[in-house]
């Protein structure tokens, strides 16, 4: 299985690290250079961790694990109004970014109220484009257990619920963190930061399980490798959006319009296959983006053998 790590060090002899990462079959996801300091996010095979650790020591850098790197997470609030939105939601989103996740804050159109709170099919499908979702709910047990549970039922990605009252369990969610409620100020006290850590930890566990599950039937290429190929596309290079390519556990979000670029994307060469043949490409619900779901090795093999059989 692959591991995502962050190297923090100097630029001197940094090429040696890049070469080593390439040699062991890993990839560089991101480089951020500030004068002579550089932060590099890398993906490497788990079994080669010791080699990278040794090289980091040699270069005088620091290596930290970023458990949520390579994931995109939706933090969902019942509405974007000030009653739900500002502090806990933003603090959770910001805290998850520290662990490497790309987070998106989302408010439901009709999520306010108790019995009147609802989620549309369109909103559910939008949320399902992400790797996981964190639902931030309110202060009353009665309201959450009887009504708000409907908001995240039948969502096909892992859901974490953060709410105020001490509820033992909720149906439809994979993790529950209590003690996070409406606030008029930022979560900066020690006990509040501990809650944010708890959410990040719960998400880390869920992501780990999903990574292992993906690994049981591995993808044809790792999303980071596919990212490197797509980066050469002109539209991606010219894109002014922050992080034009976002990694998912089983694919990527490329922030260029689907209709306009689907053919060029499908034509990119991936180990002798067309990208369109080793993945499912579709338009994202949020306009101007394309979602790529990479097929597994077995799916590609099955396709290939079917193709060969029909040619014969």
């Amino acid at each position, binding site marked *: 299985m692959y591991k995502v790590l962050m190297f923090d060090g100097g630029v001197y002899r940094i090429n040696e690290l890049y070469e080593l990462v390439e040699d062991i079959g890993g990839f560089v996801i991101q480089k951020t250079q500030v004068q002579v300091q550089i932060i590099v996010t890398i993906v490497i095979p788990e079994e080669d961790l010791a080699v990278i650790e040794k090289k980091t020591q040699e270069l005088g850098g620091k290596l930290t694990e970023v458990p949520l790197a390579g994931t995109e997470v939706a933090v969902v609030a019942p509405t974007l109004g000030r009653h739900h939105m500002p502090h806990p939601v933003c603090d959770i989103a910001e805290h998850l970014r520290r662990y490497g996740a790309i987070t998106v804050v989302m408010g439901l159109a009709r999520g306010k109220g*108790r019995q009147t709170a609802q989620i549309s099919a369109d909103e559910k499908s939008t949320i399902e484009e992400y790797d996981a979702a964190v639902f931030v709910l309110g202060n009353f047990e009665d309201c959450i257990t009887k009504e708000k549970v409907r908001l995240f039922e039948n969502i096909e990605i892992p859901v974490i619920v953060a709410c105020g009252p001490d509820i033992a369990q909720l149906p439809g969610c994979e993790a529950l963190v209590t003690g996070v409620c409406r606030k*008029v100020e930022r979560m900066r006290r020690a006990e509040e930061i501990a809650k944010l850590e708890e959410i990040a930890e719960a998400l880390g566990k869920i992501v780990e399980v999903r990574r292992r599950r993906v690994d049981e039937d591995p993808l044809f290429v790792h999303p980071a490798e596919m990212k490197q190929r797509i980066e050469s596309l002109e539209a991606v290079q010219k894109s002014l959006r922050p992080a034009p390519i976002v990694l998912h556990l089983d694919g990527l979000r490329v922030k260029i319009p689907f209709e306009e670029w689907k053919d060029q994307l499908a034509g990119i060469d991936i180990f002798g296959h067309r990208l369109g043949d080793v993945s499912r490409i579709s338009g994202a619900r949020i306009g101007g983006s394309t979602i790529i779901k990479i097929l597994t090795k077995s799916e590609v093999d099955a396709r290939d053998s079917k193709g060969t059989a029909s040619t014969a």
Partner: protein
Amino acid sequence: MKIEVEGTEKYGTDSYVDLFNGILLDVGLTRMVEAVRFVIKPSDPLFLISIRTRKAPGLVKVSDIADISATEGGTMVTIRDETYAPTLISVLWQKYGRERVDQLTRLELFCRGVPEKEILDLGLDPGEELKSKILDAIWRLLPEGFKIRHNISSERITTVAATEHEMKKEWIEMAEKIHSEMEVD
């Protein structure tokens, strides 16, 4: 500040009391609120809040808080008591419009074409401002989906009962009872 809470869920009611204290701090009303009563029953659903404020200072004449002098083309107002500055400026802007009231420095205003006597006769009512701030605090606190509201207001007490679908008669009676109890307390 005296706080009384009646509710079906301890965590929810306690957190709403904390939230209310935070909101009061934000709008700068901590010292002006004398007593609060909450009735929070999410299963009904009912959210009721009744707030009693301290007595607001009476009507203040502009001549008591500022120096006023007639000059060529209008009246010059120099504010002496800074606490009234925002209220005075907004009253003058409301009455004469922004184009006729120039803010020369932080505490100096020039009212173009306004006779000195008119400004001398003006009064500021801090009670009105207090009331609007109390309402602001209540709107911030009320659960967002509780749009059906019943308001009762007297000189120092504001009571708001809010629910989601239909305001029941017994809740209105309860609000009235609590409102009158707050008057007596």
